[in-house]
């Protein structure tokens, strides 16, 4: 992770964080107690999913081993308390007289490690565990039963080995293409834009949904990625057309919007360590969107890819209403980070060559 926050995003992160602290999301129970909720509907009679939503949560995608699917109240308090402590500690004013970080970094990892990056003021990774159908969850993945992505097939392991061998041909700073997609401002971290649409565990986990008679549009704030989902009869794209986020079509099953996606891009799955979850050209993702109250869309997904995984796997993620504007995520336009990462690597190489020359 490097430092590619444009100014706009800094402002947004600050705003979201402050708002998050000042106005914790109203719980489902509280809403129900105050007034009975009636499903909002569009002029076509379907549930109205429109607006801004966030899937930020501290519940991880995969379940930590040894945990049950549903967290106990004590576990929730522990997990959320530790996050709050981290937020509080990271939010303390910096010592203006502190020393510069050691050359080469302080040995820590992550966005705030190394030579000092973001503190929590700039981060909006959520501060609550995911609550789905009233259950505080230990993982977003719910099937298989252990809450973990199933093992890879032999063919997929071989493909990963080949991809890994290809990566080792290069140093990680040799070329722009060797850098992660997020750092290159091509996509958000992880599978944020999806499908499946998962939290990026960092910031800007926000989405805008617009719904017409024959389309659902989902915009992922980071990096302004628009998914255009056609409703009705599927008319798949040609086999060789594989857009980022694939080719999606949807239909209504009662009050649930079902979306199926194929034609996911191979380059998304073969090249980059940040890309998640990875799969083959046969990968199919099925998503289900059900609005369950004023504040919540229950988002369920299933990944089918027998070439890659030894079984299908599914997850459940609450999308919570975001009563704020979503600002422009203009990443590439101010991507000093990628420039500096590459030029820094070249500077180090020049310095090493000079030392070698001097040592002769």
């Amino acid at each position, binding site marked *: 992770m490097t430092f590619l926050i444009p100014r706009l995003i800094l402002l947004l992160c600050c705003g979201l964080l402050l708002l998050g602290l000042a106005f914790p999301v109203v719980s489902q129970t509280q809403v129900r107690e105050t007034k009975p909720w009636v499903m909002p509907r569009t002029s076509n009679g379907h549930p109205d999913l429109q607006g801004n939503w966030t899937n930020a949560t501290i519940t991880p995608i995969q379940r930590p081993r040894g945990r049950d699917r549903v967290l106990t109240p004590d576990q929730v308090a522990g997990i959320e308390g530790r996050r709050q402590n981290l937020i509080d500690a990271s939010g303390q004013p910096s010592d203006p007289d502190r020393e510069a970080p050691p050359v080469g970094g302080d040995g820590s990892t992550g966005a705030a490690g190394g030579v000092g990056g973001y503190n929590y003021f700039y981060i909006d990774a959520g501060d609550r565990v995911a609550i789905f159908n009233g259950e505080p969850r230990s993982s977003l993945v719910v099937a298989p039963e252990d809450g973990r992505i199933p093992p890879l097939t032999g063919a997929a392991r071989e493909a990963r080995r080949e991809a890994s061998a290809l990566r080792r041909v290069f140093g990680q700073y040799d070329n722009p293409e060797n850098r992660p997609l997020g750092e290159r*401002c*091509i996509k958000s971290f992880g599978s944020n834009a999806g499908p499946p649409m998962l939290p990026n565990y960092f910031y800007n986990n926000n989405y805008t949904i617009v719904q017409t008679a024959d389309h659902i549009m989902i915009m992922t704030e980071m990096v302004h990625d628009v998914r255009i989902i056609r409703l009705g009869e599927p008319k798949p794209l040609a086999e060789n057309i594989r857009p980022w986020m694939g080719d999606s079509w949807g239909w209504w099953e009662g009050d649930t919007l079902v979306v199926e996606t194929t034609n996911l891009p191979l380059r998304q799955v073969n090249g980059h360590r940040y890309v998640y979850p990875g799969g083959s050209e046969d990968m199919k993702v099925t998503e289900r969107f059900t609005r369950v109250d004023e504040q919540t869309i229950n988002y369920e997904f299933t990944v089918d890819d027998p070439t890659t995984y030894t079984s299908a796997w599914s997850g459940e993620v609450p999308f919570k209403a975001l009563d704020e504007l979503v600002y422009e995520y203009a990443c590439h336009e101010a991507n000093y980070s990628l420039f500096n990462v*590459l030029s820094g690597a070249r500077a180090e190489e020049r310095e090493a060559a000079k030392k070698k020359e001097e040592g002769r």
Partner: protein
Amino acid sequence: MSSDFKLSRGKFSRSVLGTLLSVALVSGAGCAQRTDGAQHTDIPRTASGKPDMNGIWQALGNAHWDIEPHLARAALAMQPGPVVPVPAEEVLAFGAVGAVPSGQGVVVGGLIPYLPEALAKRQENKENWLHSDPEIKCYLPGVPRANYMQFPFQIFQSESKFFIAYEYAGAYRDIYLEDPGPPQVDSWMGQSFGQWEGDTFVVEVTGFNDQTWFDRAGNHHSAALKVTERYNMTSPDHLIYEATIEDSETFSRPWVIRMPLYRNINVDSRLGQFKCVEFVEELIYGHLRKHLIRK
């Protein structure tokens, strides 16, 4: 598009060739079409009776090269030649593909009323086009440029939302239907607030930075830019698009561009994806590779 439109589409269907021919015939007369907001009776409408603009739209013509009237020329980047200027080294290999087609312009009245210093900046931009045009680097295009690039855009319109997704660079605009107040931050695509005036959708766009251009000819603005757009549907397949440009730091008075926008009537037309960031990495970062591939 609404089911209303689907019902009426057969009535108005025509071949793509037919549309292209009609473009050639009416483009020059576009300014003469109705833009007064008067009601058109044969257009698709939403449940609440508003013109239904859902669908894929595109400007045809050459405004994206230069919004002012211009002759065809050999290239966007030129260098002095022994007799006349010739294409610059960097674009020479494109040959006729890199040449600029002529255009009648879309500025009402012909020329942009630049202040003297701003006119000089336009000339500088033009001469330094290869290094200055934000489109070359796949930067977000701004408004109104996004609406008349050679890429289509898709309108998603419901009773509560009006959203435009652009093919170029994955740009988008969430046009707020309730006043969001003053823009909190400057941005490339600005902040859009739309209201209906009769059948005309009027959008005020503010909160721009000063980094976007109007075309490939160096036409520019400052961060004081305010754009007021008017979208007026004149048939199921045609919009008249008008934008009033106000920027007292750059122009001596407000000025207007106007052009038709055409619906893509191809069955199953889809907005393509042109995430061009990765296409310009060699251009922007190629000199920082460990092993240079440029000669």
